[in-house]
């Protein structure tokens, strides 16, 4: 940043940078007032790095079995212990992060890819399409999330991809309804009316004027849905309907751990703690993000 004398005569671009730096600082100060949210965000970032870097960070091959090391309690060589086939639990938890993140993020991206355009159209055009879509989402939401996912996996067959699709399909109606509601509130605002009066066509109004104004609310919803999706994937894998063994997933690991609660309880600790800490962090970060974007809410 320029010195005092320089700032007076600073050219326009430097002033712009300064304002930008100022708003960044302000944003940081507002964020720093919510330490739990910051911690949550940091933990989510940590898991994200773990998911991306699992092949390089994990100390051991998550699939390599070692018969002399079956169900060993945590030691220096295996800080999280080993499982019923002598595999390193730490490495499996790290690789499991990958699967959980993948399932959580991609299923919600799928739900948004279908739900947001559909909700935009329904809220913008109203009419018969809107009515039909609303009744359809009513019916769709009547299927309990897990029951719908189980039903879909039954049709599609159990695998990580199909579990991700099933979770995404289950989360879609929420995004349709949320987007529609936000569009209904936004489309009557003056700047949208103004854009229309200036001759912008429907597509332009939706993409350039309505969508940017509802993005933050959608983002907040996403931080709530991703942890739900992560738990859903773990449940499906736990029930044997998601990731298939020997692939390391937190759900399948907990399923295996159930049989050895007496002799190897650590098999159940780590994958569960991983799910718990990740979903808790997502929720903390999400709460913070919501307050940050909308300070008038409690």
């Amino acid at each position, binding site marked *: 940043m320029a010195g005092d004398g320089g700032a007076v005569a600073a050219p326009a671009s430097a002033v712009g940078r300064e304002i930008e730096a100022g708003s960044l600082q302000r944003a940081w100060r507002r964020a720093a007032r919510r330490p739990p949210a910051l911690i949550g965000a940091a933990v989510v970032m940590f898991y994200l790095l773990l998911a991306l870097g699992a092949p390089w960070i994990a100390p051991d091959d998550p699939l390599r079995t070692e018969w002399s090391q079956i169900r060993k309690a945590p030691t220096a060589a295996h800080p999280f212990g080993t499982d019923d086939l002598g595999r390193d639990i730490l490495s499996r938890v790290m690789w499991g992060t990958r699967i959980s993140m993948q399932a959580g993020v991609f299923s919600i991206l799928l739900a948004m890819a279908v739900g947001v355009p559909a909700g935009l159209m329904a809220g913008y055009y109203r009419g018969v399409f809107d009515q039909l879509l*609303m*009744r*359809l989402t*009513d*019916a*769709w*939401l*009547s*299927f*309990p*999330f*897990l*029951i*719908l996912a*189980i*039903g*879909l*996996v*039954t*049709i599609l067959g159990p695998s990580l991809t199909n579990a991700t699709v099933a979770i995404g399909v289950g989360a879609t109606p929420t995004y349709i309804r949320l987007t529609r509601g936000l569009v209904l509130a936004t489309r009557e605002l003056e700047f949208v009316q103004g854009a229309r009066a200036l001759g912008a066509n429907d597509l332009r109004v939706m993409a350039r004027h309505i969508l940017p104004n509802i993005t933050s609310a959608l983002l907040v919803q996403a931080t709530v849905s991703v*942890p739900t999706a992560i*738990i859903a994937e*773990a*449940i499906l894998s*736990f*029930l*044997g*309907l998601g990731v298939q063994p020997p692939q390391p997933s937190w759900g399948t690991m*907990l399923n295996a*751990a*159930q049989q050895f*609660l*007496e002799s190897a*309880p650590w098999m*159940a600790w780590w*994958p*569960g703690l991983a*799910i*718990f800490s990740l*979903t*808790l962090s*997502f*929720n*903390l970060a999400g*709460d913070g993000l919501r307050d940050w974007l909308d300070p008038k809410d*409690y």
Partner: protein
Amino acid sequence: MLDYLIQRLAISAVTLVLISLIVFTGVRLIPGDPARVMAGTDADEAGLAEIRVKYGLNDPIPVQYLRWVGLALQGDLGESIRTRESVVKTVARKLPITVELACFAILIALVIAIPVGVLSAVRRNTFWDYLANSLSLCGLSVPSFWLGIMLILLLSVRLGWLPASGFVSLLQEPVANLQRMIMPAFVLGTALAAVLMRQTRNSMIEVLSADYIRTAYSKGLAGRAVVFRHAIRNGLIPVVTILGLQTGALMSGAVVTEQIFVVPGFGRLIVEAVFTRDYPLVQGVVLITASSYVLINLLVDMSYTLLDPRIRVHGAADGR
């Protein structure tokens, strides 16, 4: 009032029709011969022919759908491939177990959520409020199946206080039944308690800032009387709605909880049906679950028109 009821009923009817269409289409999406899907892999030609005639699988699809709905309305959802028992009978046998579990879970959730939610609204932004909020956040984030496993580990394996799994009838051995139900009910109730606590807190905060509450205070009523006589009654209406909407989550939760604690209820039934590829049973269970969700929420909506007279007038206009 009557208009609202009629409109609400009409919407529920449309929803039920759509649900039946989704379930019907879903089963038709399973690759392979539908008769074979309905009858199981070990059925012979005669069995397949019988199924084809019963469900009219040679007829056009719309006719098939109408016949299927007709049979379903008469309480005939086909029979299980594995046990040959009628789907409706199987469900009727399993459902009471899950209903018992769910009732205990709701009871535990209410006992925790309402006092804590009211307290944290009244003592807003104090230590107790923060503690309650942290607990509710943990309750929302903890995966129920892991909580279940950890409870088994602590209370059954380590301390030996409670049996880890199994089921005995409530009518035959009430004490043993409660011993086996308390852990699954607590696990199932945790997430619900967290949701209800947040809802109770938010709606109590809203109600406590209303004019009539200020009036109650200004005419000299004690804080306790204001909260218990005036605020709670209105503050809890949204909680009833949320409870209705949470029945879906409760059913999902029951699937997992029953799996961990080996409770032979509705949730375990669906998982078994999926693994044995018992399609008629899966189809029946999914249809019954979704329909009961619609009916429960219809009842909830109707019940709160009784609780809150304003909804009778304005509720119909909100366009849902």
